């Protein structure tokens, strides 16, 4: 059976045999860099195309259908167009910070990839504090957003960045507490251990009502954290032009756009890992035969299937709910989600201590 794990081992063995161990490490590093860049490019193109097609389906229209078969090459053409645009820096902008911000947002987006497990035994680095690492690196991107908004010398940008800052730091709390709620069950921060603990059923089914509440809170919070509608106040196009990246054009704008979609992918991957077992196939307790049949579907397909299902959910939100006002947004977090998630966490602790989840 072809799997990413077998492929990885094959490449590793070949390198160990044919070149020295030092050269093998260097070759692996270069390969890793190329693979991650390729993943970024493909994900960016795919997710933008998916968003446009999903929005077309929601609004009963066709969507992009001219470039390539069924419009598949539309996003590549868009990228080419963005590459041919001149990158402007407005007068009076803080040039250093203005040019630094796209780099920081890309570095943050790429570093979050480290502990994400794409398939069985296919992971860049299994950090023992994986989930904590993800939430800490994810909060770096708010610095890049504030930097971009502040340095643009534009009122819309500054306003968008400030809103985005307030929104991201607020919703980080309930996202963090929802993550902690699941860690109480798994007893480990490592992504591999979290997935291994779901071998006889995913947490969303095993964890009773607290797990479902945590899942709902987590999805709301990450929708807000990635600045997606209905929480897209930071770049509300009808009031703030484009928010913090109003002044960006050409490739720098493309980098912000790409990082935004990569962040959506990553938060959905984290949700899939915490609640739906990452690459773990759908298992039911002691149904050995059923579990064996499920194991025949490759683990990478399970992971990407779950992640893209959640991405589809977030895209569905965008075309369903109207945008919130900033005070409604902050009220929702501080007066409803935060107390509920704290209470939910205590509830989950009781469930975990009494071992009701087995």
């Amino acid at each position, binding site marked *: 059976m072809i799997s990413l794990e077998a492929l990885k081992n094959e490449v590793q063995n070949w390198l160990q045999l044919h070149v020295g161990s030092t050269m093998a490490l260097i070759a692996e590093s270069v390969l*890793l860099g190329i693979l991650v860049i390729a993943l970024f490019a493909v994900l960016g193109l795919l997710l933008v195309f998916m968003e446009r097609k999903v929005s077309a389906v929601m609004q009963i229209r066709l969507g992009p259908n001219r470039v390539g078969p069924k419009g598949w090459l539309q996003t590549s053409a868009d990228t080419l167009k963005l590459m041919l645009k001149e990158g402007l820096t407005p007068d009076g902008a803080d040039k250093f910070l203005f040019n630094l911000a796209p780099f920081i947002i890309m*570095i943050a987006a790429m570093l979050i990839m480290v502990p994400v497990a794409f398939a069985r035994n296919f992971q860049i680095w299994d950090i023992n504090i994986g989930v904590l690492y993800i939430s800490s690196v994810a909060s770096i991107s708010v610095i890049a957003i504030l930097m971009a908004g502040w340095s643009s010398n*534009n*009122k819309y940008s500054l306003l968008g960045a400030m809103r985005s800052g307030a929104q991201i730091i607020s919703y980080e709390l309930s996202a963090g507490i929802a993550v902690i709620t699941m860690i109480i069950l798994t007893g480990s921060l490592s992504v591999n251990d979290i997935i291994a603990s779901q071998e006889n059923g995913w947490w969303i089914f095993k964890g009773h009502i607290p797990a479902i509440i945590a899942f709902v809170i987590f999805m709301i919070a990450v929708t807000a954290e990635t600045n997606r509608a209905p929480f897209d106040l930071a770049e509300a196009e009808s009031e703030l032009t484009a928010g913090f990246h109003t002044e960006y054009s050409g490739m720098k704008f493309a980098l912000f756009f790409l990082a935004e979609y990569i962040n959506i992918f990553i938060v959905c991957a984290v949700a899939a890992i915490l609640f739906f077992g990452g690459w773990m196939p759908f298992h039911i307790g002691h149904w050995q035969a059923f579990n064996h049949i499920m194991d025949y579907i490759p683990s990478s397909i399970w992971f990407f299937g779950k992640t893209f299902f959640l991405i589809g959910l977030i895209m569905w939100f965008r075309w369903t709910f109207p945008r919130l006002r900033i005070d409604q947004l902050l009220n929702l977090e501080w007066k409803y989600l935060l107390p509920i998630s704290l209470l939910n966490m205590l509830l989950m602790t009781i469930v975990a*201590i009494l071992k009701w989840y087995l």
Partner: protein
Amino acid sequence: MGTIALLILTIAAIVFSAGGILASKIFTKGSFNLQKGQPYECGIPATGTPWSQFHIGYYLYAIVFLLFEVELVFMYPWAVVVQKIGFPALIEMFFFIIILFPGFLYAHKKGALKWM
């Protein structure tokens, strides 16, 4: 891979972004125009500087956020071991939240969480 993965990914991100920006610099031909560098403001010439006062609310939210973020950091190690320790850990966390929550209630009472 180990720690080296972090280094590789940082380099990959820098190469990717710098490559894109450089490529677009090579392919494009810039033009000169006096009004080109103006910050966008609905088409009319921009007035004043954006770096001025803005709403105090953002600052207050950031302070209340700090209160809870510190709490969150303490919760991570607690969450890992709570199943092994059992009910004493739950009671301790209960007291921890009871001590911290009055700070939140105070901010709420003072109107820090109200958008004006």
